[in-house]
């Protein structure tokens, strides 16, 4: 029997106020994360991936409404009091963001930032906290730990600062790290270094991660499983290697095909025509249907649910079984 997951997100919907009413930006999302597992949440801007992460930690505007269950070791975070939720944020689930400069106080040194949680939540004295901070910086590959601890954010590169933010997030020894586009603002070489740190944390500490990115290739380098989101809904979920070799949803296949590659120059890139809907103007039925080459009348009349096809393979396309052979990369390449 498989052990119960660390986190289970069950039919979660989050609505936010836009104009004079509430609209869903996360719409019936379900997934699980096991201990030490890295799950990727991939989608284009506006797909709801960041809102899903923020929903988990309730980092939403006050008027936002969430339905469904978010179970951390069986305890529902949605119904937790604010005070109890603060405890979860301080100790069990940490979050890091795309732009460390927007999340680290410019007038605090790295040392102030990393030791804050240790002093406030861990009750460590200044000197002990500082020694622990040095270890944490070493864990994220910072060689000159003492100098970096004394440095202000303005004196550090973006990559170094992201390492500091990760060290700060690890201070409380969380079980789950939510990383929202943590490398998007970084150079590709630094991105590879940060991904290597995450991979080490997963292996050495069994740290579970929800890794949010717009970059399918990046998700594929690190994640065990990937969920592809569109218009607030999960379109597909698969183990990473299967997602790339045999996508189940036309949207995933389209994304894989649209990316230019290093190997060849394409005469034309295949495109997904049109653009994503806004939350206030959702299409009927399957949200991708206006942009889908495989659309049928039934795709428009009802919203297709995410269905389990086999073990860890889920698709929200009605026609997956019928068209899956045509979605494979080699078949798509011939479609032009």
């Amino acid at each position, binding site marked *: 029997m498989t052990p119960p997951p660390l986190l289970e997100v069950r039919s979660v919907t989050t609505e936010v106020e836009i104009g004079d009413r509430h609209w869903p930006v996360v719409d019936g999302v379900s997934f699980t994360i096991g201990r030490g597992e890295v799950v990727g949440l991939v989608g284009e801007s506006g797909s709801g991936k960041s809102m899903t992460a923020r929903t988990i930690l309730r980092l939403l505007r006050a008027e936002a409404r969430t339905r469904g269950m978010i179970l951390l070791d069986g305890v529902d975070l949605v119904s937790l009091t604010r005070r109890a939720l603060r405890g979860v944020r301080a100790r069990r689930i940490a979050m890091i963001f795309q732009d460390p400069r927007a999340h680290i106080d410019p007038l605090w040194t790295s040392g102030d930032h990393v030791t804050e949680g240790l002093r406030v939540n861990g009750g460590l004295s200044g000197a002990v906290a500082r020694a622990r901070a040095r270890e944490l910086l070493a864990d994220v590959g910072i060689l000159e730990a003492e100098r970096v601890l004394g440095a202000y954010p303005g*004196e550090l590169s973006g990559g170094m600062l992201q390492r500091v933010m990760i060290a700060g997030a690890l201070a409380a020894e969380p079980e789950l790290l939510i990383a929202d586009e943590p490398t998007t603002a970084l150079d590709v*070489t630094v991105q590879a270094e940060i991904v290597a*740190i995450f991979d080490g944390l997963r292996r050495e500490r069994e740290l579970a991660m929800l890794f949010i990115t717009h970059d399918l290739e990046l998700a594929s380098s690190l994640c065990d499983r990937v969920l592809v989101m569109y218009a607030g809904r999960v379109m597909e979920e698969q183990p*990473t290697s299967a997602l790339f070799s045999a996508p189940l949803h036309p949207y995933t296949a389209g994304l894989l095909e649209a990316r230019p590659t290093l190997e060849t120059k394409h005469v034309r890139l295949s495109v997904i025509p049109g653009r994503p809907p806004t939350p206030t103007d959702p299409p009927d039925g399957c949200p991708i249907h206006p942009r889908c080459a495989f659309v049928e009348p039934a795709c428009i009349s009802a919203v297709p649910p995410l269905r389990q096809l086999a073990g860890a393979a889920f698709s929200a396309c009605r026609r997956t079984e019928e068209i899956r052979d045509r979605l494979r990369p080699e078949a798509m390449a011939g479609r032009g």
Partner: protein
Amino acid sequence: MAEPAPLLEVEGLEKTFRVRRAFSRLRGEVRAVRHVSFRVQQGGALGIVGESGSGKTTIARMLVGLEQPTGGRMVLEEEELSARPGRAERLKRARRLQIVFQDPYTSLDPHQSARRMLDEVQRVHFSRSRGERAARTDQLLEAVGLGRTEGGSLPRELSGGQRQRAAIARALAAEPKILVLDEAVSALDVSIQAQILNLLADLRSDFRLTYILISHDLAVVRQVADDVLVMYRGRAVEVGPVETILSAPLHPYTQRLLDSVPRPGIVLPRRPATLEAEDTGCLFRQRCPYAFDRCVVEPDLIHVERVHAARCWLVDRGAGAAVSVPEVEAHK
């Protein structure tokens, strides 16, 4: 046979900034661009790649006159561009060199529709009647795939992809020879990025454009550029045809860049982060796995073929058989 004179020739271009950062004790000089030279032929497409701080955007800004070089020459159609252009010269340059930025939201006038923008560019550069301008505006909107409604919309009413189309149309309105694309597709979602990359391919042939593409994304460079200049900390460290650079990179930094491109299931070994970088010798040597004693002196660009050169002692034939170019497995 002699090559035709290049459309654009950049020789020994330099830019040194004096810096004093807020909330920081750092001050001094930053050599953003260090003696960079390249040529672009009419109809060519040069990609300039490198990480932040490599100087690639500073080169773009100097080309279009937004930044003044502190050294070197830029020659466009056999005529030297002034480092401190006056008004007339700026106008003349704008007719020949246009730039499209990463974020059209901050580079477009928020109070002007695409139509009005295109009209204004034509009024500045050409003596055309209102009717002629309107006809040309229609052509430009159609060329970039914007409809009548979108043409009349303000930037904030457009999607990211549509805004970038509007920015490209505005650049084309001046009928430039060279379009400088400064991370012009970097902020776009994959599905939209593919549309704009296809548009750029169409426009290049339809308008006989020459591209200078600044990008950190090697796959985008592969799609658009014919030749590549790899920059590291202000230096050109490798230059050559795009297929050669991507399939047989010579400089260890280029190899690192290529290795770092995410691939399914591949995580690179962890590397420690260090604070400061030497400013003498080879600028990459502290991060370079192959650094040896010779690297305290910076090499020139060393040609391995007529069109392919790298600034690395490892490619110097004089270095002897003991040192060979390391193989990079990921690119086979």
